[in-house]
């Protein structure tokens, strides 16, 4: 199969099918073909996420726990220095006291400030929109942590024991949500989205924003969504609904 044919087929297979089970309860299944090791990442894809805050339960941390298990962070006792790849953020209106809780992590911006400021190019954006840190060339200057408008990056303050092979971590370097790039390349959705669909409200919809047939692309068009600090012009790949 020629490369263009293969890409066509992949585009056809990729997508998220959503089955409505009952009002307020959705089960969505993400299906995609694994990327072959020799296959280049394509800019035709832009991975992103749509988070329906209305479906985030009070005190629910299913996505956070799933990320910890999948990527091997957490378990520390120093909340100010321990890494957090994703966190439950409570947003409260100071006047009405109305509050919502939402997951906050790397927003995988199209114009990521962390990538702009990194002196060595360790912070980089993959062609398909995933923002990553090359752990081999991160010198630990922390300029990206200063530059991220979302407070999404963590500096590893102490030695890491037993990192997962697919999520390398190291003392003295910076890390953040990888959008579970290893899972995406294997044809699966990120662990947080999967856990949210399986065990929580199904608030996180993952998919290809550039594919007009994907569920996420359709919903982004259909509903009013919000991107956090859109005024900064970073063009995040994560959008929020019902915020």
């Amino acid at each position, binding site marked *: 199969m020629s490369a263009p044919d293969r890409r066509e087929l992949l585009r056809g297979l990729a997508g998220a099918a959503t089955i409505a089970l009952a009002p307020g309860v959705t089960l969505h299944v993400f299906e995609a073909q694994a990327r072959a090791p020799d296959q280049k990442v394509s800019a035709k894809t832009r991975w992103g996420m749509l988070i329906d805050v209305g479906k985030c339960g009070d005190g629910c941390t299913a996505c956070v726990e799933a990320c910890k298990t999948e990527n091997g962070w957490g378990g520390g006792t120093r909340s100010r220095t321990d890494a957090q790849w994703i966190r439950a953020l409570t*947003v409260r209106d100071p006047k009405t006291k109305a509050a919502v809780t939402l997951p906050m992590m790397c927003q995988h911006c199209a114009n990521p400030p962390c990538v702009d400021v990194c002196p060595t190019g360790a912070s980089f954006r993959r062609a398909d929109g995933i923002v990553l840190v090359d752990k081999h060339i991160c010198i630990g200057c922390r300029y990206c942590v200063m530059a991220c408008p979302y407070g999404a990056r963590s500096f590893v303050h102490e030695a890491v024991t037993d990192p997962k092979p697919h999520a390398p971590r190291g003392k003295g370097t910076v890390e953040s949500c990888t959008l579970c790039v290893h899972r995406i390349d294997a044809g699966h959705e990120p662990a947080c989205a999967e856990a949210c669909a399986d065990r929580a409200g199904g608030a996180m919809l993952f998919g290809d924003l550039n594919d007009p047939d994907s569920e996420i692309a359709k919903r982004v068009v259909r509903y009013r969504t919000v991107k956090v600090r859109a005024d900064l012009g970073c063009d995040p790949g994560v959008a929020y609904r019902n915020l």
Partner: protein
Amino acid sequence: MARLVFRRIEQPGREYWAGLGVLAVLAMVGLWAAHVMELEGHVVTGMTNRVVWGLPHVFAVFLIVAASGALNAASIASVFGQADYKPYARLSGLIAIALLAGGLAVLVLDLGRPDRLIVAMTRYNFASIFAWNIFLYVGFVAIVAAYLVAMMDRELGRSDRWSKPIGWLAFLWRLVLTTGTGSIFGWLVAREAYDAAVLAPLFIASSLALGTAASIPILAACGRALGEPLLADDMLSRWQRLLAIFVAATLYFTALHHLTNLYASAHHGIERFLLLEGGGITQLFWIGQVGIGGVLPLALLLLSAPTMARLNLAAIMVLVGGLAQFYVVIIGGQVYPQTLFPGMEITSSFHDGEIAPYRASFYELALGLGGAAFALLLIGIGAALLPFLPRHPAR
């Protein structure tokens, strides 16, 4: 004008050796602190995921900014043709290189992976002002070194054929360098305290003040080691006026920065924090930066008759104020929470929405002081090895 004769500290006395010894011990303690930080990780510092740049950055930026300004005497002599400053030109080059080396040493040793310095020297992302700064710093050392050769070489130093154009290059380069250092903060859109182009000229004004201020006690110490004062009466008043102008310029740009922020209601939160409700940060701003580093030395410099002791006191006050200034900018700008949702309150397990606590650990202080000590050590050794000091300084 009589031909200038330069000298070195030929017969270092007991005081010189004691001073050098103290500096060497401080530098070694700093190196040890950096070793512990690398071994144990930054968990031994007061830094957190909210305050990722701590006291070492305060010292590093202070030293780097002062380094650029320390070249004032040489620039005034070569670029602005003021021959009275020529006796201090060589020493100002030495101070500039040494302070930059001290600042860079702190910056590098505070990296999470200082062992990867070679990566920083071989891989560049030119969208990053940090990467540009690596070139600006290395280039500055090279240009000032060439400048010193042009001034000190027996053949080349006979005329200003070489020292003048290189002096011009060094002058322009240091303006760009300080702009680059200010832009590290000025180009950060993510934090309210920064994201202001005025930080670049503010850093330039600070560099002129701090570099001049740093040179004065060093000139005094070198004069002491030689047994004769290096700043004679007429030059005392000129240095005094020079420092006063630079301190006033720094105060002006500081006021401009805060007034501009106060005009935009989006920045009222950070300004209220820095100027009114920031506790230690607010005290450091008003008492340290504005009082000790600005108003008091300005009054001392403008209202009193010039003496070496008063000039020295004013210079040391300016230096203390400079440290306070960079503490307020670097630490104050980070402890204030980032705005993710304007107008809303946010909370999380990652301490969003909180004023972050920060207390520098001993290791950070040791590393910062070690960098400053290393710079002074280089100056002390340099002044004893090569003729950097003027023999007939007065005229």
